[in-house]
């Protein structure tokens, strides 16, 4: 199979970028999308052209490092799949593909398809945890967690922090990412003491990072490689609202 790729090339954050056109020949349908890019890069190196920079690490769809837009869709056309797990058998000979980095104010471009997602870490640092210093824990079975709660928490905890939700959102909102962590921890009994403080602190941090606001469009859910549901956003809004109305979130006035 032969493909035409248009890839965003940008040397660094300050330089202007442009789309560059590449022909890739004899693509094996068993390859992953990133392996196809590896082959392209090898051919560029052979021609003394600089390879395309893209983030990737585990290539198993779990580390969350990879991700870019393929024809305007985050992680490409297959639902519930990161781009490292997307295989070329889903494309056809002669396809023309446009690859662009995540575009969001809060994710500045580093180079080519690589962006800086440090804002996500800062949202977690603001409150995305349960305060449990090492050594302070009671016996594991002393805390009963219903199977339903554990399953619901796990659904939300599956988030890999890749940023596809932000990239796909017309508002570049981080609501699905933030909501997933609020839902994960807020569903469990261990997470109750900090539940409202957490919701307020994380939402406030997302605002400071200049992510947009959620207007319930749902593009995020559609491209999430881990199938995180919009329910996470509803739960975040509920916790946030309750905290602000009742004054339970200590950092309430910041939001």
């Amino acid at each position: 199979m032969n493909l035409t790729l248009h890839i965003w090339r940008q040397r660094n954050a300050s330089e202007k970028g442009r789309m560059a056109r590449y022909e890739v020949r004899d693509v094996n349908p068993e390859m992953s999308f990133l392996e196809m890019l590896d082959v392209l890069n090898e051919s560029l190196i052979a021609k003394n052209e600089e390879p395309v920079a893209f983030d990737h690490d585990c290539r198993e769809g779990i580390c969350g490092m990879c991700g870019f837009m393929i024809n305007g869709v985050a992680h490409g056309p297959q639902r519930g799949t990161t781009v490292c797990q997307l295989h070329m058998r889903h494309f056809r000979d002669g396809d023309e593909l446009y690859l662009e980095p995540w575009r969001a104010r809060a994710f500045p471009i580093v180079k080519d398809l690589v962006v800086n997602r440090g804002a996500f870490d800062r949202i977690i640092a603001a409150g995305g945890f349960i305060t449990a210093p090492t050594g302070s824990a009671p016996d594991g079975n002393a805390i009963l967690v219903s199977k339903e709660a554990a399953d619901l928490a796990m659904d939300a905890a599956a988030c890999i922090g890749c940023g596809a939700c932000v990239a796909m959102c017309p508002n570049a909102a981080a609501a699905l990412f933030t909501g997933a962590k609020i839902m994960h921890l807020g569903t469990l009994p261990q997470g109750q003491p900090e539940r409202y403080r957490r919701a307020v602190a994380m939402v406030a941090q997302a605002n400071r990072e200049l992510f947009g606001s959620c207007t319930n469009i749902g593009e995020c859910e559609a491209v999430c490689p881990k199938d995180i549901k919009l329910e996470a956003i509803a739960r975040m809004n509920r916790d946030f609202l309750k905290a602000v109305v009742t004054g339970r979130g200590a950092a309430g006035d910041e939001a």
Partner: protein
Amino acid sequence: MELDSKIPSGPIETLWDRHKFELKLVNPANKRKYNIIVVGSGLAGGSAAATLAELGYNVQCFCFQDSPRRAHSIAAQGGINAAKNYHSDGDSVFRLFYDTVKGGDFRSREANVYRLAQVSNNIIDQCVAQGIPFAREYGGLLDNRSFGGAQVSRTFYARGQTGQQLLLGAYQALERQIGAGQVQMYPRTEMLDLVTIDGNARGIITRDLITGKVESHVADAVVLGTGGYGNVYYLSTNAKGCNATAIWRAYKKGALFANPCFTQIHPTCIPVTGEYQSKLTLMSESLRNDGRIWVPLKKGDKRPPNDIPVEERDYFLERKYPSFGNLVPRDVASRNAKAVCDEGRGVGESGLGVYLDFRAALERLGKHVIKERYGNLFDMYERIAGEDPYQVPMRIYPAIHYTMGGLWVDYNLMSTIPGLYVIGEANFSDHGANRLGASALMQGLADGYFILPYTIGDYLATSKLPKVETSHAAFREAETNVDCRTKRLLEIKGTRSVDSFHRDLGKLVWEYCGMARTAAGLEYALEKIPELREQYWRDVKVLGTGEELNQSLEKAGRVGDFFELAELMCRDALQRNESCGGHFREEYQTPDGEALRNDTEYSYVAAWQFHGDGLPAELHKEPLHFDYVHPSQRSYK
């Protein structure tokens, strides 16, 4: 050099408690006066950095990924062991200890393993408190499953994403400390050298992967939690970025490297499909609980698997090992898969594969139960292989997965360089010649949460370290060396890419120092590897500059180190004239093909000392003693 493992004497069950009491403490008010560098943010590094910061130390943490949440611990699927005995099925700290020593084929230290089994229970408690969504039973209690190499159900899990959830727990604890200003985090930063002053580890040299800036960082102690070196083989289940540079630099600065030839092959990975293949994907070992492994009885039987009647199938693990069946340890399962493929009975296009069949479990339990247990793994298989494992058996083949070898450490997890600690997969300490499933997560978190934070205090409290600045000559010299190496790689301007060299190296090591090894093969590899390395330093092509994000340059440095490490692995495999665990020397096997250990001559840890480029490394031996688990030939029959 005399290797002092610093193992306390006395009854094994009292050692750790007494040792903790005897360790000197750092006064809470004084902890903030100490700087500790933690390199790596996986289960070991992340949990250590968070815990040290909670204690009050100033911590600087480094990772090469864009966020500490992405360390490769995240990809562990199956679970984490603990001796909770919640099911009253006969488990105990002693049994977990026993299973781990036996599983490691009697090449690990009893005292270390016993301590690991002891703290395993604390880990589960800690992780539950952090909000790890472990699988639960309907009554709300923690659920368990069984795993290879054990006859009790002691594995705790969070669907097929246990590593992810445990890592996110450690990551969130770390982020809490970053938010509190107690940890300074350096993402996209790679350690390129260790700095020692007066023999003590006093800092590191790093390169900022975005700007290329080379910097010095001073500390009172340095902790390496940088993972294993499976990527020497090019194709492995490791993430693409996993590398040995941090431990290799430390080795070249005087830390001994122990048991480099002890590498683990995981039996259940998706087979290789072509030359372009960039990595191998693991299918969790937990699948062996419900999947049955088989190949056709006849050679070259190309019928689709569902058309082969049961009587024409060979369930070779169940046949050879009736008491453990499909749950034999990883090395045994891998070797047997290779054996049936070598006989010409392998499946798939390449003939390098065996079936992992869920038909019986699907009939017995129903699709919904299988989906609940393994749904995400089945989906992953279908995405990669393009086949639906609910309908046709999976095809699997062994692949490099874990490295038991690593930097030598004593009971305090300190290397032979004072002030340099090594934790998690990066050290050699607990798994001997073979690691049991669901034990890597356990060891990483044991080291980071519960062992290192105690032992490092003793070093800080008892050493008188002079204040140093980055202007010290040792830092200046190390920075210059790092700059020179980068420059050298960029100036070669050869004809072949880094990956093409790495792939060739991987093939050599996999062929001659992989699943089965021979003296002749290892000697051949020891001839070829230096040739290839020499060619590499003459002909590698790295484009771009050192002052920007340059992924080829990053790889080039790492592959340069892999060449040297690969040679040490082969040398180590060659000196160990026995078969044990993951190290299988074809010359040493029982008549029915099982590994034949030689306890009289090889019951030691092989620790290698670097003496300079081009000079042979020197072998030191730390003898192993077994007072509680008597070495026997492992039998899973």
